[in-house]
């Protein structure tokens, strides 16, 4: 049987989990933080320890939707010479070893500079399944969605607690793969409390679409993950993982061990 890819691979992953009564644990790392070799190992470690989908951050110099933890990761990655072509190369290498769905999380300018059609082509060829662009709202997304659609890749939109019913309708219409529901007002980062707006947003989006809903921003403990999981199809965890990476920059074995243990805990809480 031919392996599924792109939007179809994401759909199949959510469908399989759903049939098992489970949710996706979606793990974020910034590509190239601190180097690409480590990124590859992190991805494989996350998969081995229960992640269902990997989000690979493409570092950008001016990440306005990110808090300090991911900003600093982007800084480390850029200082190490990470570029979009190198991220694609890394995905291509990973595809020799894993078929876990991989989505890129990026800002618009690096993609625009690379060329939208060229990006869609090369991302597909590398084995990328979907793309999340933090500063590309539904209205502006058409020019990227078209070439991605043609390649069978998902342009995954975001929905926020501030999104009006009209906007959620529009977002749902344009959505591919899943909808990234932003759990709170604010940037990425760990929070002590459970995001209060999350359940209401999930409910509002759910009323408008059957597309899988993943919840992200601010979720950093298994406890919180377990509470929000029943209301969505996937839980996204970024800063908490990146923080473990940052803490263990000079001890890769320790880094992988801690990230692996954390992923196991999260996957269990979410599933």
């Amino acid at each position, binding site marked *: 049987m031919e392996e599924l890819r792109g939007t179809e691979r994401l759909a199949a992953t959510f469908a399989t989990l759903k049939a098992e009564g489970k949710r996706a644990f979606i793990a974020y790392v910034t590509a190239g933080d601190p180097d690409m070799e480590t990124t590859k190992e992190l991805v494989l470690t996350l998969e081995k320890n229960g992640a269902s989908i990997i989000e690979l951050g493409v570092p950008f*110099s*001016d990440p306005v*939707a990110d808090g300090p933890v991911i900003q600093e990761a982007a800084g480390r990655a850029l200082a190490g010479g990470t570029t979009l072509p190198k991220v694609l190369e890394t995905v291509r290498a990973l595809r020799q070893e894993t078929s876990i769905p991989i989505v890129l999380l990026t800002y618009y*300018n690096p993609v*625009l*500079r690379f060329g939208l059609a060229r990006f869609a082509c090369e991302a597909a060829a590398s084995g990328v399944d979907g793309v999340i662009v933090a500063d590309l*709202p539904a209205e502006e997304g058409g020019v990227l969605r078209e070439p991605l659609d043609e390649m069978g890749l998902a342009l995954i939109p975001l929905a926020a607690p501030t999104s009006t019913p009209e906007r959620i309708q529009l*977002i749902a219409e344009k959505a591919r793969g899943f909808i990234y529901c*932003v759990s709170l*007002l604010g940037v990425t980062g760990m929070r002590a409390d459970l995001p209060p707006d999350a359940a209401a947003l999930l409910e509002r989006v759910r009323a408008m679409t059957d597309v899988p809903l993943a919840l992200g921003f601010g979720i950093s403990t298994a406890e919180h993950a377990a509470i929000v999981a029943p209301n969505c199809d996937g839980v996204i965890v970024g800063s908490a993982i990146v923080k473990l990476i940052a803490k263990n920059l000079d001890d890769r074995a320790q880094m992988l061990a801690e990230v692996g243990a954390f992923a196991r805990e999260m996957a269990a809480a979410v599933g």
Partner: protein
Amino acid sequence: MTGQLTPNGRFGAFGGAFVPETLKPALEELEAAFRQMADDPAFQEEFQTLLAEYAGRPSRLYFARRLTEHLGGARVYLKREDLNHTGSHKINNTLGQVLMAKRMGKKRVIAETGAGQHGVATATACALFGIPCEVYMGAEDVERQALNVLRMQLLGTKVIAVTSGTRTLKDAINEAMRDWVANVQDTFYCFGTAAGPHPYPSIVRYFQSVIGVEARAQIIEKEGRLPDAVLACVGGGSNAMGMFSGFLDDASVRLIGVEAGGDGVETGRHSASLTAGIPGVLHGAVSYLLQDDDGQIMGTHSIAAGLDYPGVGPQLSYLKDSGRAEFVAITDREALEGVRILALTEGILPALESAHAIAQAAKMAPQMSPDSLLIVNLSGRGDKDVHTLAGEVG
């Protein structure tokens, strides 16, 4: 004033609203409020009264006789935005936006600032309306614009030094956007220039268009005709769009934007986005941008903190591509010479930003006939820069 919003927030291929989804509804709310207030006679009256009674408008159009004699060519006029309350054109925009914030019932105003002039103007408007205010400022600018930091603090505003990235205006805008994402429901972001996501380029142009509208009427009254060219420095482009928007339909008037050439455009240490950049997306709009081959934003340099920014407003990008406006770069050194010439011939100490436009006028005027007319937008006064000047002159 020219109050139209551009369709889809586009100026040709430029503009748009490339922001996180969380902010998109706030921009829609802002656009709706702006539409309503631009048509509301009560808002207009309050705004016009503030400009006249509080900011000190109209600003003078001053014939610089000694500068003209010194340069030996075109007759040079100065549009004296430096005479406004708080010492720059920024007050026009902040009175307008903070008045909008008040009418929208917002509880808090945030802003970013480079040279500190927009910060001071926002702090001033917020003190006047009794709204709490916080201003983000790059750590490097906090140091070189210490006087304006103190002014903001005296006006009751909290200044937050930004240490991320290049520690200048670009990073202050990033931090202000992060704050806005977190507090969007009750916070008004008073954007400092005619850049950023739609509808800011249109709103800021609207509030600054008073500069060009006044200048046009004043030059016709004094000289009986239109100028041959108008000049303005370009940071994000608010004083330039303000001046240009009075003359857009006057095909005979050259519109000249003066960017920061820093150490020289060829050195790579500059902030000349239109001269040396390529289109891309930063801070919410498609516009000319200083970026590398991978789409990362490049570090910038200018002796003028208010010009030290890798982007530019989208309408200026459009005016460049359509050929309606011309853009040139003036180096730090030439700008310092601009300060010196204006101080010695006219007794006016211009802001380093404005000195870029003066320096360009000093290049052009001698090549022009004595019956030609130039208007230079003197966007601000130089008090804030004495610290920098002390290090350079001596």
